[in-house]
């Protein structure tokens, strides 16, 4: 004798019609979405003059440049390049740190569970939004005009642009914190400051630290780009060598940047695990 339950398909079909015969609209939803996405892609390619012939002609040029890059060779400029790379790393590190230090207190003001009143929170959020709306590159151009060419403008550009980004990310991390832990502090007689210091910060700091580490890594790339427009660092050297068609130096510089980014990635990974690990924080 079988121990399996007896199944009557007809009975079940009658009882749950939406499972067995879903309405035509829900069956067509996925194909319709795919068709729409494809249509947008085709329209975009046509509108932006996507041309296979130009690409094929260009590939030859690309191959030529790649050949010119071999072997990578800094010539006699290695000390200058190393100094420039150090400058780029310092711009990224200083800019990100400044952004984080200033964003933390402001992000508290933008968090719903710290400032319940929308009237006070709204202007802070819009302020962060408008700063974030302007890209790092634009901030670099602005600061170069204010404080002149050089790494100082780069630090300011990254600090300001990421202040906006951090403000939003931190406040979201704070809003995601477990309120029960904060309530435990309040119920024991802690003040609002205690609630932030002991209830929120232990929960939020590991998240924030992870975000800051990631931004340092990504800002190493940003610092290269803003270097090209004149904010100092290795980007400036890179732009210069592309302009004078010194492709061997260009490839060497690109390799230096790759190695630096990989090293920072590795270090920040180690640090992140150390921070979110098992140790108690305070």
């Amino acid at each position, binding site marked *: 004798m079988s121990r399996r339950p007896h199944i009557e398909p007809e009975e079940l079909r009658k009882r749950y019609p939406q499972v067995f015969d879903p309405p035509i609209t829900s069956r067509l939803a996925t194909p319709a979405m795919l068709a729409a996405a494809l249509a947008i892609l085709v329209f975009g390619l046509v509108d932006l003059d996507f041309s296979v012939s130009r690409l094929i002609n260009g590939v030859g040029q690309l191959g030529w440049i790649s050949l010119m890059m071999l072997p990578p060779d800094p010539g006699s400029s290695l000390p200058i390049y190393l100094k420039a790379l150090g400058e780029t790393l310092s711009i990224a590190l200083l800019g990100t740190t400044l952004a984080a230090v200033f964003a933390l207190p402001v992000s508290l003001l933008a968090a719903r569970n710290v400032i319940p009143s929308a009237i006070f929170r709204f202007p802070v959020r819009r302020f962060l939004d408008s700063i974030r709306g302007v890209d790092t590159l634009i901030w670099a151009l602005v600061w170069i005009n204010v404080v002149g060419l050089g790494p100082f403008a780069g630090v300011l550009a990254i600090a300001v642009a990421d202040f906006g980004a951090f403000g939003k990310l931190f406040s979201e991390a704070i809003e995601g914190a477990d309120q029960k832990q904060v309530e435990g502090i309040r119920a024991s007689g802690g003040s609002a400051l205690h609630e932030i*210091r002991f209830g929120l910060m232990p929960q939020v700091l590991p998240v924030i630290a992870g975000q800051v580490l990631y931004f340092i890594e990504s800002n190493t790339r940003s610092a290269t780009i803003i270097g090209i427009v004149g904010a100092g660092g290795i980007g400036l050297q890179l732009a210069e060598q592309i302009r004078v068609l010194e492709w061997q130096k260009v490839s060497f510089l690109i390799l230096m940047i790759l190695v630096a980014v990989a090293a920072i990635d590795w270090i920040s990974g180690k640090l992140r695990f150390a921070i979110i690990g098992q140790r108690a924080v305070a």
Partner: protein
Amino acid sequence: MLVVDGLTCRFGAKAAVDNASFEIAPGGFVGVIGRSGAGKSTLLRAINRLVTPSQGQIMFDGVDVTALRGRELRQWRARSAMIFQQFNLVGRLDVLTNVLMGRLAAMPAWRSLSQVWPEQDCALAMSALEQFDMASLAAQRADQLSGGQQQRVAIARALVQQPDIILADEPIASLDPRNTKIVMDALLRINKHFGITVLCNLHSLDLARTYCDRLIGMSAGRVVFDGAPSALTEHIARELYDLEANEVMGGTPMPVPEGIPALGTAAAA
């Protein structure tokens, strides 16, 4: 002496606590019983002022708790220590720091914020942990402990607040039977040894009868019973829980259905 007089807590149109009045003499172990949603939690949270009462008054030793603000309010919260169903410890802080949170209202802010804890407070915290066999775990992170251990840390935190009354909100609802006994015994010990009044929400009538010397029954926000556990008749229990009384009292076991019901018929029955 805690006096609750006409206490009402409204959330929107719904009154979670509706015109509750009672007095609690020092040293009692009072259980608050009733179904989920009867207003037990809100009542305790209102006494600690985590919830602001809409109407009525809470007096403690002649002080109007409902009117306290700022520093005085924080000191009242320390005097009326809360214990929560979910423990409400800070998971990433170590056990000792969690217990020291109970001292926040008793020291200047610069000391606590810079974590320069007075030696005396550390000693107080360690001795509280020792009472519940938790001293060896002082350096552990709170979120690495089991539920029963976390609740004992929470009780230690409540104890170092040197409270006049402990408000325990379903302290054992997240625990297994063995830890239930450990935690309830700990509360009883605090009550008997230190003479601290305990006001404890429970939904298990058996536990309430075992540990409490007085029961307050709530239903739909109202106090519908107030008396000794022995005075809680089957009729009142039935009213409180809206159930057949023997299911609540654990008297006669549930009748075993004849044969094994076929799959799918259980829901219909």
